[in-house]
């Protein structure tokens, strides 16, 4: 019996469930917090589930929320695999969005031509914003965590300036309120709505396809191999002829590009204009940080990021429903997200310890002296 239990406890398969255990732990602590706040956790979680999955519209909203999380999560998978910690997705998303919307407002071309170019421009804008910290890290040894945070703040001010000035909707410029937002994109440029009247848009398909593309890129191309090798061991990679600096730039550039695309899709698929409230989250909805949560939850695997993004999308949608039903502020879910990050990275040690236990078990099994005949050493070597 003990043997059986330890077999489960130390099985490699359990590793895949660690993120789920981490999320469960966060939910249990969250339930405690709800109790303290005088709210029944069962009722609160029930309202979250209903709000996220209860009907067609709820499901569509969950998917809509999942799109930026998945796209940014894909970029994070790439950069974290190269051991480059990109926390600048917020800024990269903003710059991608700014450039994409500027293009859409400037041209008067047919929709089938504008849409793909706009998506590419968003991708490109994010890539520019991501590659700056990439170059700074690779060639000037500037810590990317710090530079990406600074780039976020710069991007926010850039957005506030442009939306409140040169790019402001002419109607708003005349109005008294002067809301910082751009004009609305021409209807021909909108990403198709897949399931009217819900807001489910074609961005979902783009994100899912790209998840597969990133999977192939990371695990079945030389570029992906190089990126992962640099993350695994930069010294060995250099010895093996990989240009480490270049991979660092590429990792941040691609990571930024996906965030930029997320910005473009958010505008062309959902809002049809760019709006700010003066902070980053006014446009991104915190997707830059939640994308990190998503990628970690998905095990830094592009295909794992798909269910992860849906899960966190559901949490966000559910949080709003919960706020309406139980008056618990939706920031409750932010706390849950943060705890998931902490627990997922903390669980790595458990994985490591179990790996060691497995190895020790394997060693003790092969070297166990049998009571009847102790086999000569050569034989035991063959057995193992």
């Amino acid at each position: 019996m003990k043997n059986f239990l330890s077999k489960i406890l130390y099985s490699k398969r359990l590793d895949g469930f660690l993120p789920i255990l981490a999320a469960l732990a966060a939910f249990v602590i969250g339930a405690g917090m709800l109790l303290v706040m005088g709210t029944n956790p069962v009722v609160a979680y029930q309202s979250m589930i209903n709000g996220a999955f209860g009907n067609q519209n709820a499901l569509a909203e969950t998917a809509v929320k999942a799109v930026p999380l998945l796209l940014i999560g894909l970029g994070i998978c790439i950069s974290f695999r190269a051991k480059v910690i990109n926390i600048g997705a917020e800024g990269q998303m903003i710059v991608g969005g700014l450039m994409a919307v500027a293009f859409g407002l400037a041209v008067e071309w047919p929709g089938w031509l504008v849409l793909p170019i706009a998506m590419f421009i968003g991708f490109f804008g994010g890539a520019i914003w991501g590659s700056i910290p990439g170059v700074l890290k690779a060639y000037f040894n500037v810590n990317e965590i710090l530079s990406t945070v600074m780039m976020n703040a710069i991007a926010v001010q850039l957005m506030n300036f442009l939306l409140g000035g040169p790019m402001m909707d002419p109607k708003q410029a005349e109005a008294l309120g002067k809301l910082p937002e751009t004009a609305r994109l021409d209807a021909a440029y909108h990403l198709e709505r897949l399931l009217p009247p819900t807001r489910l848009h074609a961005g979902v398909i783009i994100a899912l396809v790209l998840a597969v593309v990133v999977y192939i890129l990371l695990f079945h191309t030389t570029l992906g191999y190089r990126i992962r090798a640099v993350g695994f061991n930069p010294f060995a990679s250099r010895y093996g002829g990989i240009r480490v600096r270049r991979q660092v730039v590429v990792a941040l550039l691609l990571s930024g590009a996906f965030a930029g695309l997320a910005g473009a899709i958010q505008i062309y698929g959902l809002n049809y204009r760019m709006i700010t409230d003066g902070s980053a989250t006014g446009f991104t909805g915190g997707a830059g940080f939640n994308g990190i949560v998503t990628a970690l939850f998905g095990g830094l695997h592009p295909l794992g990021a798909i269910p992860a993004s849906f899960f966190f999308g559901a949490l966000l949608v559910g949080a709003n429903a919960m706020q309406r039903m139980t008056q618990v502020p939706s920031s409750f879910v932010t706390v849950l997200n943060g705890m998931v990050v902490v627990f997922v990275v903390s669980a790595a040690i458990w994985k490591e310890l179990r790996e060691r236990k497995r190895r020790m078990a394997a060693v003790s099994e092969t070297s166990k002296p049998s009571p009847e005949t102790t086999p000569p050493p050569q034989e035991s070597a063959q057995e193992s």
Partner: protein
Amino acid sequence: MDVSEIFSATVIIGVLTAGIRLASPYIFAAIGEMFGQRSGVLNLGVEGQMLMGAFTAFYFTLQTGNPWLGLLSAILVGGLMGLAMAVVSIKWRAVQGISGIGFFIVGGGLSELLFKTLLGEVKVINTGFNPVNIPFLSNIPVIGEIFFRQNVMTYLAFLLVPVAWFILYKTTLGLKIQAVGENPQAADTLGVSVAKIRYLTVTMGGVMSGIAGAALSIANLNVFQENMTAGMGFIAVALVYFGGWRPFGVMFGALLFSMVMALQIFMQVFRFPIPSEFLIMMPYVLTIIVLVLTVGRVRSPSALTKPFVRE
């Protein structure tokens, strides 16, 4: 107002006074973070710890009318969050860059949650730490006005710098901290408990961040708003690099930063013909430039972000 008035004596004194005051949250948080990094732990959760400190300090000051009780609560909450970060990064050896982001998200979310449930709306206190005139010194023209009519938290922040310098360079504890951050294996061999030192520095770092939050909410602004730190915690982390892991270096970094902030506020008030967004952007651009310039010259602690495993 005429643009040339920006350069009048009153305005210059105003900018310097505000700059000194604005430096205090950065100094508290960055000095705390510096000790953590000196011992080999990068705590990226400063922003979350500051927000929690800012909220609890504000809340308890509002409830009791006593800013010292508010400060005490911020110390406790910051210390608890620091301890949590310490457990995660020392005992569980989690990737520090990422677990810190987790704590940032937790702190940000929790302070917002508490703000919305306990306060519900932005409130103002008038029982925070008000400016205290130091006898005699505050009467010195110009200098007195700039340096000696500040609030208690500002004085404490600038006192902390030489104290931190003394602890780091002149005490056994400081030398142990440096040893643990430079060569944990050697320190361990000599009987220094790497874990104990790191628990201490990271928990104290949390305390300092909590105080930094309090300096913001019950001394400099007397108000709490969700996400009111707006990236200050991350800037504090950058200031540690910026200051080359030295207390006075960190202080000068903080001052440079806060002076630019103060200048920016004044330029906005005087409707300087540059969009305010670009003025707000300046400190961040400056940080990146300074990081580029300083990185080659100072070396980070060798064991920074590396969990210690006895071999």
